[in-house]
């Protein structure tokens, strides 16, 4: 479901890992930096072999890794309902969606690898809790309607965040996002249609839908990250054109999109302060519980422990399978070549 989020700005700040300036190491070629700045300013794409500031590289690796991790952790809350989907059509849609998410994870790890890291390294960091994934996936899917609410709201928020990333200054990331956004929009429409069916269904189905929206609305708004005045890295990311709009701008855009959709679904959004502001031309909405947001980011959300444990377990329990694939590849490489093969861990495909 791909929720790259602005969470990373706060996380990076907490970890103290992002340099606030765009400079390379001491003595970096000023001409290279000038060329980079000019390329970014001219909306040209930065490609893997191009010179780039270290901080730009580090910032991208972190964002793309978090995005990739979000795709694969994000499989869990939805996969939780594959075995219980109430019709074969819905089951097929859900399986296809979870499969797409694994595919998105693959695109994004590949894109991140163009920056000199590896999927193994990134997964190790995820498993060790040193890299994050979107806070939204730490909420549980308690009913079938949650699958619809995730599609409509979570994927909707993700798309609002991600469409501008299709114009991100880093070429491989931007190209991955073009492919991902196409599939995401499809998922989002399916989630909406799922809720529509529930909204038009029995009273119990309707209640189920409303309850899911009540639980997912605020966490979805949190996906856009902290308010602009508390998001120090946004500014640098925007100068680098990794980010195109501020957190609050995107959040407002999302709210304005959702209000009429909620009306069409016959569902309400759980915010008594939500109303149209004629003067601003936007919806005003209530304040977000940033304490909850911080707690979830710190690992104290409802499912943080469970999500990471399942991911680690899948990885650990799959180790013998990956080892077997690597050993087989080495053996059969040796048969074909007389030279001594170098064992690698990459033969896991």
């Amino acid at each position, binding site marked *: 479901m791909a929720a790259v989020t602005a969470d990373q700005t706060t996380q990076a700040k907490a970890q103290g890992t992002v340099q606030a300036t765009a400079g390379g190491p001491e003595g970096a070629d000023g001409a290279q930096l000038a060329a980079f700045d000019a390329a970014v300013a001219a909306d040209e794409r930065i490609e893997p072999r191009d010179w780039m500031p270290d901080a730009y590289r580090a910032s991208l690796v972190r964002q793309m890794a978090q995005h990739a991790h979000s795709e694969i952790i994000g499989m869990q809350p939805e996969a939780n309902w594959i*075995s219980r989907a109430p019709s074969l059509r819905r089951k097929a849609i859900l399986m296809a969606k*979870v499969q797409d998410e694994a595919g998105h994870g*693959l695109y994004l790890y590949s894109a991140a690898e163009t920056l000199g890291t590896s999927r193994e390294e990134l997964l190790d960091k995820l498993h060790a809790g040193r890299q994050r994934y979107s806070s939204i996936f730490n909420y549980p899917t308690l009913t079938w309607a949650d699958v619809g609410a995730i599609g409509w709201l979570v994927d909707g928020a993700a798309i609002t965040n991600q469409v501008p990333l299709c114009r991100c200054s880093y070429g491989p990331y931007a190209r991955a996002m073009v492919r991902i956004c196409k599939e995401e929009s499809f998922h989002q429409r399916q989630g909406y249609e799922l809720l529509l069916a529930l909204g038009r269904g029995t009273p119990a189905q309707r209640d189920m839908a409303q309850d899911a929206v009540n639980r997912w609305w605020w966490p979805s708004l949190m996906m856009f990250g902290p308010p602009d005045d508390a998001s120090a890295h946004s500014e640098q990311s925007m100068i680098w054109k990794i980010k195109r709009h501020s957190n609050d701008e995107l959040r407002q855009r999302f709210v304005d999109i959702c209000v009429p959709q909620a009306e069409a679904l016959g569902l309400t959004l759980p915010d008594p302060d939500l109303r149209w502001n004629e003067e601003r031309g936007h919806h005003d909405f209530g304040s977000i519980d940033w304490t909850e947001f911080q707690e979830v980011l710190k690992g104290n959300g409802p499912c943080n422990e469970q999500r990471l444990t399942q991911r680690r377990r899948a990885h650990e*329990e799959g*180790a013998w399978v990956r080892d077997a694939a690597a050993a*087989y590849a080495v053996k059969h490489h040796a048969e074909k070549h007389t030279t001594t093969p170098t064992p690698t861990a990459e033969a896991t495909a």
Partner: protein
Amino acid sequence: MTAALALGDDALVLSHRLGEWAGHAPVLEEEVALANIALDLLGQARVLLSLAGDEDELAFLREERAFRNVQLVEQPNVDFAHTIARQLYFSVYQRGLYEQLAAGEGEFAGLAAKAVKEVAYHQDHAEHWTLRLGDGTAESHQRMQRGVDALWRFTGELFQPVEGVEIDWQSLQNSWLATVTGVLERATLTVPAGPRSGAWTAGAGRQGIHTEPFGRMLAEMQHLHRSHPGASW
């Protein structure tokens, strides 16, 4: 029993088992591959069950004794090796079956012509993993042998003729044995010595006699649908 029900239940139940892997696979590529196979099978199931009646009524409102799938497909995933052994046995069977059906003029010829392409991919996937696991490390070899052995006794049922499926069952069985034996040998595995069917397993699934894990699987699969009688989703 209608033939569509037997073939449809096979695909439905195996698809469900593969769906249980989502989020648990040993490597991301297998998340994609297992879900892909599960989706192909679910697609086949939906076409077949629709030939027999309403797909959702058939999937969600029949009880265990009314399901007509072979017992092989309902066996739990256990580990990746068991899953691959089950895929190997079933995909080789299903490919041979669909090839014959596609070549004939019966009611399943159209479906089989489309499905045989998917099944060829499933077989390829299962064969390659059987080779990697069988001829990989000592541990993977042992696990693969265990999976192959454990599921062997469920394979005889695959060749119990299904009324309405007009194919040469004997030649299906012969080519299945030849293919599976070839793959196991190339994978440095021992072809299991035990019987492929016995008093208990022979044709039992097709008669609605299933193994214990199946009821629990259905309970999970049907629970939500049954909790809201008459609702549309």
